[in-house]
């Protein structure tokens, strides 16, 4: 592959929301994905329409980019006649090439596409399913099998504040945390990364328990009320652990730092002779030690503190990341298409995500499952349909189809682990991985199921009616439309009420090779 040119026409809806025009810009850095493109050009035209206004939706910009490139990789494979996995393998960044500066100007810190893909193929039974597909095609079965691939990556852990500034975002990307050591021995952790179901209470408690050597059960995580947690930028962009979690660690380290001279004073030792582990300061080479929770009570009583020491072990910290986080994964989907009704049913869905080190596997599993459902729903079910006058006709859940567990298979999920090199825990974000990866995996599978019948694209959501219509058109011998060009030359922005200019095309996105993050703007 020698180059990638993206011309993106984006429907903003009638008004701008918080980050509406920023969404395609996030995508601008991701169209090149895991592949080594020598050249890249990105031109984006955002248009106002009389439809509902839009804003960030789980993945924001990265799902759109990932969908485009992963669909294109399948079409390229078909065009040149190789297996779609092989075309990816030939063109992706090799494990020994990390860290890798991309054509879009990002620096991917770590990754191992080979390992995730090998594991996913094995769990999925890739070769056996390809064999079954071949056999069904030859037999002319009414139910055809399709295999969809999505070897995604994304940029998350939003975000280095200076990068956001360069992109004209209104706010920075830091996150805040504070820790209060109570005289009772309990620990209060206050986070600005407010959870609304993501399980920060559990994960932050795990982190602080490990860092401070206190009992998990003695930690309380507080958030969500600005009287308690006045500073913070919140939970979005798969940032909580990689940014908010790092602020928690920094605050914990400050607690230890603050406690050390007091511990030395109480132990009548030199600070330099103390080591901290398992919740205790120990004088090296002796049995003399004092626990952090005992120190908290002693500090509160303040009867015997070193001169000048304030009677508090509380600490706060703000963390601003140096780089984004680049999780990746290989998602494989097997879809059965009933050629008589057009119905597409997912038979298997296997994903191997690499999100670096994991703090809480159960929470990660939940994030992946929820994300998969959301992305699959976009591929097969959910659609905001407008009539010709711009009226929403899918305005209730009678018409706007949200799948339930009854409509989906059991997912096979697993992980590989390429620790991030840009944070002390080696973690990456996972909140949006499922939604970013799954949509193209499913649509690729649907198209793959019927490609031999002369079909190379089906618009999302791949409803039974759309699939059946594509089959009818193909069997009638009419030309099926090639993958649509992304910009219709006839669209003249002056015909629209207003155009929001977010053309990054002449910026770094079109740069010759990589120029590091400094060149993002």
């Amino acid at each position: 592959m020698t180059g990638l040119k993206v011309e993106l026409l984006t429907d903003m809806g009638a008004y701008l929301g918080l980050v509406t025009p920023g969404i395609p810009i996030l995508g601008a850095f991701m169209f090149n994905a895991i592949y080594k493109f020598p050249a890249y050009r990105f031109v984006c035209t955002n248009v106002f329409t009389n439809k509902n206004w839009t804003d960030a939706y789980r993945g924001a910009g990265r799902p759109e980019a990932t969908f485009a490139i992963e669909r294109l990789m399948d079409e390229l494979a078909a065009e040149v006649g190789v297996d779609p996995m092989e075309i990816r393998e030939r063109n992706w960044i090799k494990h020994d090439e990390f860290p890798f500066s991309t054509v879009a100007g990002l620096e991917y810190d770590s990754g191992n596409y080979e390992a995730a893909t090998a594991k996913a193929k094995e769990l999925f039974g890739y070769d056996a399913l390809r064999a079954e597909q071949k056999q069904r095609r030859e037999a002319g079965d009414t139910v055809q099998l399709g295999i969809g691939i999505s070897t995604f990556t994304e940029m998350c852990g939003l975000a280095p504040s200076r990068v956001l500034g360069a992109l004209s975002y209104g706010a920075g990307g830091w996150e805040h945390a504070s820790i209060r050591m109570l005289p009772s021995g309990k620990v209060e952790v206050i986070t600005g990364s407010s959870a609304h179901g993501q399980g920060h209470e559990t994960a932050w408690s795990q982190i602080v328990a490990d860092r401070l050597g206190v009992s998990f059960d003695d930690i309380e995580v507080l958030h969500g009320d600005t009287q308690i947690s006045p500073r913070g930028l919140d939970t979005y962009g798969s940032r909580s652990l990689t940014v908010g979690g790092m602020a928690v660690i920094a605050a914990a380290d400050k607690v230890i730092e603050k406690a050390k001279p007091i511990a030395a004073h109480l132990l009548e030792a030199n600070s330099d002779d103390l080591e901290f582990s398992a919740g205790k300061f120990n004088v090296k080479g002796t049995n003399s030690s004092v626990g952090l929770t005992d120190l908290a009570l002693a500090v509160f009583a303040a009867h015997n503190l070193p001169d000048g020491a304030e009677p508090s072990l509380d600490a706060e910290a703000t963390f601003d990341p140096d780089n984004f986080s680049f999780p990746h994964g290989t998602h494989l989907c097997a879809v059965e298409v009933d050629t008589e009704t057009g119905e597409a049913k997912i038979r298997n869905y296997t994903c191997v995500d690499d999100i670096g080190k994991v703090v809480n596997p159960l929470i990660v599993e939940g994030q992946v499952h929820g994300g998969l459902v959301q992305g699959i729903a976009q591929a097969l079910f959910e659609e905001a349909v407008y009539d010709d006058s711009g009226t929403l006709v899918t305005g209730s859940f009678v018409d706007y189809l949200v799948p339930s567990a009854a409509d989906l298979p059991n997912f096979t999920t697993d992980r590989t682990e390429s620790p991030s090199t840009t944070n002390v825990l080696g973690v990456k974000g996972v909140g949006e991985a499922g939604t970013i990866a799954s949509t193209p995996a499913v649509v690729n599978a649907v198209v793959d199921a019927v490609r031999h019948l002369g079909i190379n694209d089906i618009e999302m959501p791949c409803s039974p009616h759309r699939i059946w219509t594509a089959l009818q058109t193909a069997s009638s011998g009419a030309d099926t439309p090639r993958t649509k060009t992304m910009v219709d030359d006839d669209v003249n922005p002056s015909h629209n009420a207003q155009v929001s200019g977010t053309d990054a095309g002449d910026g770094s996105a079109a740069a010759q090779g990589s120029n590091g993050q400094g060149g993002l703007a």
Partner: protein
Amino acid sequence: MIPAAFDYTAPESVADAITALGSDSEEIKVLAGGQSLIPVLRLRLAAPTLLVDIGRIRELGGITDEGNTLVIGAMTTHAEMADSELVKEHASLLAKAVETVADPQVRHRGTLGGALVHADPAGDLLAPILALDAELVVAGADGERTVAAADFFEDMFTTTVGENEILTRIRIPKHTGWGSHYEKFTRVAQQWSIIAVGVTLKVDGGVISQAKVGLTNMSSTPIRASAVEQALVGQAPTADTASRAAAVAAEGTNPPTDTNGDANYRRHLAKVLTGRAVQAAVSG
């Protein structure tokens, strides 16, 4: 999502219910389970001034065996029908259709009478009732009248039940020993039928002796696929028979177009689903 204010009465006899329907309240609606009416009220698509809740009328419940006829009280819930050995044995098509309705919560509140009088063309119980040649007993101030299912449904959301009447019971001729199948097509599990096909048939001596086929959401009312029935009767229950019958499934239909598919697609689905339903009915 809060209904407009309304008066509420819960009579305990059919006579009292009919009296309530005759009151001078401006707009009166009968509440018969509420699985359709309550959402309509909450969305304020309707704003009746009086709700007559017939859920406490004991004489409207129960499933009884009356010789050649199965009698189902109008306020019998979907769950009661699904669990009924009488329904499974003598009207298996209805038993199979009722299992596909919504979810357990809805099936425990929704009623057969409510579904029939609501007359949503995508409702799953209408076509089976039509196919089973049921008779519907309607009570009014002047007493009872019996209406054939074929005459009961007049249009979308419209039946022959008058303003001061209530449907009291459904009389279904026993179809003991008939095979049946209800083939429903939806995109997600909890969705109204895009279309559905209900088939019940009797095989005697290697030949289909009788066949009844009802279509859901293929017109503004449930309809019988008469051409399919004719194509089946007298034929051997083979795949070939099924496909020849399926080919005429769309005759006389007038299906809607919506976001799930256009009329042409629904006609096509009717054929595919009819073929499948016939094959399944033959084997059970």
